[in-house]
């Protein structure tokens, strides 16, 4: 590990000695994860990735601690109190997946003032003293429409499945979808809220389906593709191209359909392992490296070509995942500079 770090330090033009010293600098640092919600498979995989990666980092002596804490109620007030506790416990860095982009700004500011490095990811915070590892949700929406436009150059009708009403992520993905649809021949003929849950999506789609004309594609937000497939499969409509969100049951369904009738689609989402990216970014900041305040998370895509491979590596009932290494985190930082 150390040798690798030294080599890398040399490669990036930093004096070897400084790099070696800097590397040792974080061995007594303690990093905490403040997580607002754990009630779905994506979050569970996220916590698991954090723990696996954090335990390894502690064992190798890169950091002294990598503890994860989750609030029970997904409330900003609760998370603010949790961050206050972390300040008192003397953590050197706090990595946050926030319940709200604004409501915990006060607690984040207090942490910064106490000299603590704050890195937010996925659910980011707006407080300027914190680092933000953001997802380009609009782009996520656009990519889906772009894929469908390739498949259906003549256009057609689309059904949109949205997330949880009133949440920023839902508005962003939907804005991206609608924006890109304007540049295509598609028309969105129906829109329902699936709350990012298969059973809710299934119910909503089954309810609107009788009122819809023929649809060629379904644009989604993740965690809702399988439910849509179930609802449409229950009718005698032909199956439209449903863009999936990397869940194992979605990929499995896709592979089964592929085997039986050559069904093709695409799948994209954010890997839950983004928590490990946030971990390494926090470690790099503690290490004294210059890290831009705004970083972007790469999407994890599953295409027709790597479907089989993705299914093999995704545990049953979970989400397709990648964990980031320290070097990959450095790459993400370098591209943002």
């Amino acid at each position, binding site marked *: 590990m150390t040798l690798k770090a030294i080599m890398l330090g040399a490669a990036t033009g930093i004096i070897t000695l400084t790099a070696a010293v800097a590397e040792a600098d974080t061995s007594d640092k303690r990093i905490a994860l403040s997580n607002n919600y754990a*009630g779905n498979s994506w979050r569970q995989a996220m916590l698991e990735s954090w723990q696996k990666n954090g335990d390894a980092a502690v064992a190798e002596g890169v950091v002294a601690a990598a503890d994860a804490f989750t609030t029970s109620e997904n409330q900003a007030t609760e998370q603010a109190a949790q961050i206050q506790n972390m300040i008192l416990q003397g953590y050197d860095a706090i990595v946050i997946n926030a319940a709200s982009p604004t409501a915990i700004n006060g607690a984040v500011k207090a942490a910064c003032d106490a000299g603590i490095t704050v890195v937010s990811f996925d659910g980011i915070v707006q407080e300027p003293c914190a680092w933000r590892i953001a997802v380009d949700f609009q782009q996520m929406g656009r990519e889906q429409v772009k894929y469908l436009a390739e498949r259906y150059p003549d256009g057609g009708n689309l059904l949109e499945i949205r997330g949880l*009403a009133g949440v920023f992520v839902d508005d962003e993905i939907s804005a991206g979808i609608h924006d890109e649809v304007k540049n295509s021949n598609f028309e969105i003929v*129906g829109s329902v809220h699936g*709350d990012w849950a*298969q*059973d809710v999506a299934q119910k909503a789609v089954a309810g609107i389906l009788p009122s819809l004309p023929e649809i060629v594609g379904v644009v989604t937000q993740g965690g809702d593709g399988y439910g849509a497939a*179930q609802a449409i499969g229950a009718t005698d409509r032909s199956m439209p191209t449903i863009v999936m969100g990397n869940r194992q049951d979605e990929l499995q369904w896709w592979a089964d359909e592929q085997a039986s009738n050559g069904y093709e689609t695409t799948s994209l989402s954010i890997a839950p392992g983004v928590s490990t990216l946030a971990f390494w970014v926090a470690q790099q900041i503690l290490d004294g490296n210059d890290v831009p305040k705004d970083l972007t998370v790469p999407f994890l895509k599953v295409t027709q070509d790597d479907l089989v491979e993705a299914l093999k590596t995704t545990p049953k*009932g979970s989400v397709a995942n990648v964990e980031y290494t320290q070097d990959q985190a450095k790459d993400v930082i370098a591209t943002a500079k």
Partner: protein
Amino acid sequence: MTDKTVLTQARPNPARTVLQKPWLWAYLAATLTFAATSMIAGSDAGSLFYAALTFASFSAIVGIGQMLVITLGPGNIDLSIPATMTLAATLALKFMDTQTALILPGLLVAIGVGIGCGLVNFILILLLRIPPIIATLSASFLYQSLAIWSNRGLRIKPPESLAEFATGGALGIPNVALAGIILATGAWVLLERSIAGRWISAIGQNLRAARLSGVPVNAVRFGIYVNSAVCAALTGFLLASFSGGANLNMGTEYMLMSIAVVVIGGSSIGGGNSNVPGIWGAALFMFLIVSMLNSYGLGAGIRLILTGLVIVGVVTLASRKGYDA
């Protein structure tokens, strides 16, 4: 035929008797939303009705459990329904592990989880004297955590034949709806035709009077809370089989749904007076109003506002009887 003329007529009038039924408004609302959606759906209205029956059954089954709890009087409510659903579904599906031979034992696991959750709720409420709203809410954290701990959010598929049963139907009626109708009939017989039903209403109307007249108050309350948890567990089991696996957040929307169907169905919010047919009317309506607003392309904001207004309207109409008398 207007309201006024009917109301001024003499008592033994069948039209008036029907108009006084508090469940009438839920069915009226469901019919109106169905008609409005059918105008868009056209020839597909049949499949809309089929979908409504399917999805309403989940709300109806949890609603029956919640209704009996609410009947017990002010302060009685079961907020652990979503967590009980999740826990029962998770443990049952994990136990069955997609094996057809284990379907019946799996169902028993789900019911067992329901009985266990109901027992814990009741112990907190009676022995520790915690108000039901706090007891069931805090117990639900326990159940939810157990569900997370037991399977870490992994989604296990139901056995093939169970999934086929849950998504299938007989005589043009979905199987899950048949289950919901059987349970509702059972609840109606219990409430309207058995001595236990009288006890439940008596406790809700006046706890002290019920106790003094020899009603086994604690035994009835025990039965009702366990029943609510078993209904939730059963719904969790059916829903997970229907939608292809148990999710950690699968029960979330059934917290408010279970209360909404009770209230819209015309049961008294203060307890003591409940109403089984209304549960089904309200459950159908809750599904159809979302379908209708989605079909007309209205956004989530308008949808929520309209849903809220309609709930207020239906509750006002359904409870008018109390003020007339």
